[in-house]
């Protein structure tokens, strides 16, 4: 996803001199060409995320469209008040870009697990929150956010995620993408979980004759209420799947829509409990510990359906 991001950003920066990339001493083998081609549109702020975010807001207030870039929690949680007061309160044209969403840096330990970022960013006034499901969505999201200006948060995986969309997609912030059709239930997911969710859906279709709709909810804020409510009435059950805490993220956002609309349907959030892992490992290993692999998703979805039919 980061390759799709930097490719799109480089493309926009060539024709829009306002586009500026500010990195927190990160981006080795990603940002070099951008830095070389657009020296007036690039700065390395050093390992100093609070200053990075404050100065990004300052540059935005001076007319730039700024993208800050770092790993997981560093440009979000580390400098949360700069994000809130300097970026959001001023409505500054800053898009915060992170690599390493969820357990992408699994073996690196809890400091590098970005597992509460969506919830926290989502509460900030004026903030748009986008977590693309694959490299294709990541490219589209970058163009869309460069156009919109910010405040925004773009949560990426790292490099080499599988492409899920094999054809062209209609990407619009605030509009979910229907990746698979179906009427037995709906799986709503965000970010890099899309691949596992589509695989689990296809497994359910062949082994259990369950036709699940799959929505890639790349925009968590604003969220696509219409798609959620249509899924509720047309498919009768919803499961949210996210590589993030079950508190306040995608599952939280979807349940808010459902609860306030008054539809009572079988509903389940699959995600990470509010606890730190005491052991670590690869991304798939940690996903597996929390039921976020195909092997974990299939029985969980099946269980919800069985419960609903009873």
């Amino acid at each position: 996803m980061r390759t799709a991001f930097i490719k799109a950003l480089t493309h926009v920066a060539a024709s829009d001199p306002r586009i500026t990339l500010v990195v927190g001493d990160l981006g080795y083998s990603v940002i070099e060409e951008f830095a070389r081609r657009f020296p007036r549109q690039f700065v390395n702020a050093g390992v100093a995320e609070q200053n990075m975010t404050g100065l990004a807001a300052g540059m935005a207030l001076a007319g730039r469209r700024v993208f800050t870039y770092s790993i997981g929690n560093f440009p979000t949680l580390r400098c949360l008040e700069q994000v809130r007061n300097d970026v959001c309160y001023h409505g500054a044209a800053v898009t915060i870009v992170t690599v390493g969403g969820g357990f992408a840096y699994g073996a690196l330990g809890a400091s590098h697990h970005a597992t509460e970022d969506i919830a926290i960013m989502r509460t900030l006034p004026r903030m748009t929150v986008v977590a693309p499901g694959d490299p294709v969505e990541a490219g589209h999201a970058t163009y869309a956010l460069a156009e919109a200006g910010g405040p925004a948060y773009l949560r990426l995986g790292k490099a080499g995620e599988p492409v899920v969309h094999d054809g062209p997609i209609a990407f619009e912030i605030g509009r979910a993408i229907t990746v698979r059709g179906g009427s037995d239930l709906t799986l709503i997911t965000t970010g890099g979980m899309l691949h596992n969710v589509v695989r689990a859906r296809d497994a359910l279709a062949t082994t259990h004759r369950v036709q699940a709709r799959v929505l890639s909810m790349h925009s968590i804020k604003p969220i696509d209420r219409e798609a959620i409510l249509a899924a509720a009435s047309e498919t009768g059950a919803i499961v949210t799947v996210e590589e993030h805490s079950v508190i306040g993220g995608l599952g939280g956002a979807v349940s808010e829509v459902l609860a306030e609309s008054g539809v009572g349907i079988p509903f389940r959030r699959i995600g990470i409990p509010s606890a730190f892992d005491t052991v670590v490992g690869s991304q798939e290993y940690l996903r597996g510990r929390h039921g976020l692999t195909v092997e974990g998703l299939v029985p969980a979805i099946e269980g919800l359906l069985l419960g609903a039919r009873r």
Partner: protein
Amino acid sequence: MTTTTEDIRGLARRIRAHSLRMTHSARSSHIGGALSMADLLAALYGRVLRVDAGRPNWPERDRFVLSKGHACASLYATLAETGFIPVETLSTFYTDGTTLAGHVTTGAAGVEVSTGSLGHGLPLACGMALALARDESPSRVFALLSDGECDEGSTWEAALFGGHHQLTNLIAIIDYNKIQSLGHVADVMALEPFGAKWSAFGWAVAEIDGHDIDAIVRTLETVPLEQHKPTCVIAHTVKGRGVSFMEGLLTYHYKPPSDDELARALDELEGR
């Protein structure tokens, strides 16, 4: 127990060898910064720190805080060589289900704090030093920082705090290897005059060669360098030190040693 300079050199060599094997089998980053601090770790754990592997939670122990948590391979190696954790566990580094996470984590005996986000170590160390001093504990707190994390405001907020509160039992050691994540410190965010900054914040400062075992031991054994001041030891080091083809290169902040590089590196270490 007296440990000679030669013993400490031997310990440093074993720490380097373990670190190379660990990052090789894990295919993990950060070998450069693990090697640059190996002599400091060997001197600390071989001689300076009052710690006891048999009683890792002994209340009067000195505390060691690794703030540059990404370079933890050589700390885990040190803890294995000094009896805190079994040597065999080193091979679990980065593997599924391990407690030896890629940034230093308290799951391993002897690790006082988990870090990984830069700029957290010195504030934690200040808090420990303040509480221990107020409780009239003989324990001292040693924090090992990277030069890169001296970009962080939190590091300087703690520096102000340590000076203001005259934390005589606090020793910050900076692994000044002159390279951070995207280039040389001098190009990314210059720190010089570095020692003068710490002095201005109220610290007693020593600048030493961070690979000269005698100089490290001599300095750390005479702390506090001044009464009523915390100590800052700026250790001039070389990123990748000990493996000639890794020395001074940004590449080895990221690149794990290949099979061939591991063999050559181990040969070089034995030959010394």
